């Protein structure tokens, strides 16, 4: 464990949000953002393992070219339900609804989110939406692909499309309400002294994420509502046989679903922006640029959606415009990566588990982001569109990036959430297993994609087998990597070493209160007087500010 000179013998607080009240009712009717975060943690983890099960079935099936495990229809159901579960019920709510919910009020110095009841409502909406989707999976399954492309989904599919679509529609409102709550909280609930440019980047990225949530999600909601009406009552907007246009569905779908990728990755970037300064013990390089880059990603991210549709017969002019904007959105991501790397220079770096996840994130996000350039590039997209290259690319972003950030954040704040430390060495090994397993699973898929293996194939020509076997092998390692943290984090929540208020130590406001925090977060409303991530301005952390690698004159920019 790293140093904690000011807390030699950490004490577990007597009264905290976990033992304030007892009983099932006190959890199911709670309006405490911290408890709601834990409700989300339990349900999101459930969906993660449901989705993970589907993923394992897919990979096992693809071990042989003619796939003997599942029938064609069942394979199609597996990848569809994997996609739907992971995207709508794991990735989108994972960091915002768990870590964001828990931390944003703590970070801005508020007693709770602006609308605690709406926060609880959003969890119930999520559960109802999840119930509909699970119902469709059990009764008839879903075989449309997570993209629900029409007219296949509205006219031709023989599976339970309507309840699944309704489930996703309902869950959308959970996301809208979470985003609304965050936006309003950041605007009106900040503690005295917590100016906009003293907000941690975790809050900035969640602010950007919330913008995407409230502006994008309603569009997918109405789109899915129209698709459901089309399936149930024969409305014709997306049905070419009735004069409708299936491409319109794709426009509407991707108007949300592309920015939704930023709902997944931006919070993860926020986590990394917390981890790197903390474990490098150095103020984040270019704070203003990273904050602005977050907003730029959220805004430009809304202007690129039709790059999913370059080969639908879209107008060539529109394709050029969307491709150009796609390249533009790469720039703020690059800015972030360079600023994170620059933060390491002149720092005092320790390699605790969260930092390992941060490094893992850097590597995987870099590969994921850069392979996005191939897909955004019109000429190359002709060949690799809808192949395994795409599959590998978005898994590098959404699993490599988002999940690495999620797990890194979970480890980093686990002492704050539970008051106890996780087993450090086991955690480091798990992080390593994940990194290796992940690359072994998904890197071969880039090659498969360039060789021309299309997505969503339940059988494939034998020349693609080698890479598929590698991928399946990697997936088995990955499965172990995901099970391990679940087991030891649960163990640590009850039996881990008592962590103390600020074990790392870190500079955020959330570390100024007890671990686990009291229900009202701060006994006295805190007043913020320091700049974000500024270790030199924080004598209370007990660090030796006179010992620096090299003392260079500070620039007055920040």
């Amino acid at each position, binding site marked *: 464990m790293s140093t904690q000179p000011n807390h030699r013998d950490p004490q577990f607080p007597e009264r905290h949000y976990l033992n304030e009240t007892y009983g099932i009712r006190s959890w199911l009717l709670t309006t405490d953002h911290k408890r709601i975060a834990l409700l989300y943690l339990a349900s999101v983890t459930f969906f993660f393992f449901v989705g993970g099960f589907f993923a394992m079935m897919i990979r096992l099936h693809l071990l042989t070219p003619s796939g003997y495990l599942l029938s064609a229809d069942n394979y199609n159901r597996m990848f569809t339900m994997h996609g739907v579960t992971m995207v709508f019920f794991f990735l989108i709510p994972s960091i915002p609804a768990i870590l964001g919910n828990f931390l944003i009020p703590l970070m801005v110095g508020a007693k709770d989110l602006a609308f605690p009841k709406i926060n609880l409502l959003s969890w119930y909406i999520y559960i109802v939406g999840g119930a509909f989707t699970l119902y469709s999976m059990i009764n008839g399954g879903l075989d449309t692909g997570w993209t629900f492309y029409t007219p296949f989904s509205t006219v031709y599919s023989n599976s339970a499309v309507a309840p699944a679509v309704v489930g996703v529609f309902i869950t959308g409102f959970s996301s809208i309400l979470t985003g609304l709550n965050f936006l309003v909280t950041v605007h009106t609930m900040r503690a005295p002294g917590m100016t906009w440019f003293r907000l941690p980047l975790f809050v900035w990225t969640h602010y950007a994420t919330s913008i995407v949530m409230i502006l994008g999600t309603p569009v997918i909601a109405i789109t899915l509502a129209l698709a459901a009406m089309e399936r149930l009552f024969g409305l014709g907007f997306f049905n070419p046989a009735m004069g409708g246009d299936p491409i319109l569905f794709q426009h*509407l779908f991707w108007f949300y679903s592309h920015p939704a990728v930023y709902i997944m990755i931006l919070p993860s970037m926020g986590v990394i922006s917390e981890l790197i300064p903390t474990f490098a013990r150095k103020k984040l390089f270019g704070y203003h640029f990273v904050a602005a880059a977050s907003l730029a990603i959220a805004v430009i991210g809304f202007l690129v959606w*039709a790059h999913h549709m370059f080969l639908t*017969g879209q107008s060539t002019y529109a394709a050029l415009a969307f491709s150009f904007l796609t390249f533009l959105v790469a720039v703020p991501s690059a800015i972030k990566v360079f600023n994170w790397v620059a933060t390491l220079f002149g720092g005092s770096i320790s390699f605790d588990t969260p930092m390992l996840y941060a490094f893992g994130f850097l590597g995987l996000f870099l590969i994921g982001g850069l392979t996005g350039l191939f897909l955004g590039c019109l000429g190359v997209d002709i060949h690799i569109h809808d192949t395994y290259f795409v599959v590998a690319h978005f898994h590098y972003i959404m699993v490599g990036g988002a999940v690495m950030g999620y797990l890194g954040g979970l480890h980093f704040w686990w002492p704050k959430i539970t008051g106890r430390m996780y087993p450090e060495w086991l955690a480091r090994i798990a992080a390593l297993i994940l990194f290796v397993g992940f690359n072994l699973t998904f890197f071969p898929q880039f090659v498969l994609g360039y060789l021309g293996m299309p997505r969503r194939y339940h059988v494939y020509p034998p020349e693609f087998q080698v890479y598929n076997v590698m991928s399946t092998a990697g997936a088995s390692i990955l499965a172990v990597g995901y099970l391990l943290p679940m087991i030891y984090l649960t163990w640590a929540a009850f039996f881990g070493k008592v962590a103390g208020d600020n074990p790392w130590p870190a500079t955020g406001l959330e570390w100024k209160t007890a671990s686990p925090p009291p229900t009202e977060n701060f006994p006295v409303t805190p007043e913020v007087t320091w700049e974000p991530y500024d270790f030199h301005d924080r004598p209370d952390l007990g660090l030796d500010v006179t010992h620096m690698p090299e003392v260079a004159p500070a620039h007055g920019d920040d």
Partner: protein
Amino acid sequence: MSEHDDANHIVSPRTYLVIILTLMALTGITVMAAFRDLGRFNIVVALAIATLKATLVVLYFMHAKFSPRRTQLVIIAGIFWLAILLFMTMSDYVSRIDYRGVRFPIMHRMVEGSERRG
């Protein structure tokens, strides 16, 4: 509008009355305009009047004129994103050369082809 930042600003019933009468009058104008042939400008006029009406409702009935700048920003963001959705999608359709009225010509051609052969 910093002098209007008072959240409890009260608009007088007189103002409301003027606004509602204007709205009714604009409704009449929009119907009358629809009965004149303005070519492609019919829709422009209709939307311009509707936007004027909506603006009056937002500014006075909804007190946006007297709200904090932040609220005004929220409204503008909403309109802006709606514009992105509509204009960028339509830009695809209007810049296509072959979109309008294409209906399965390929099937007809295939039938023709076989007839020609046979």
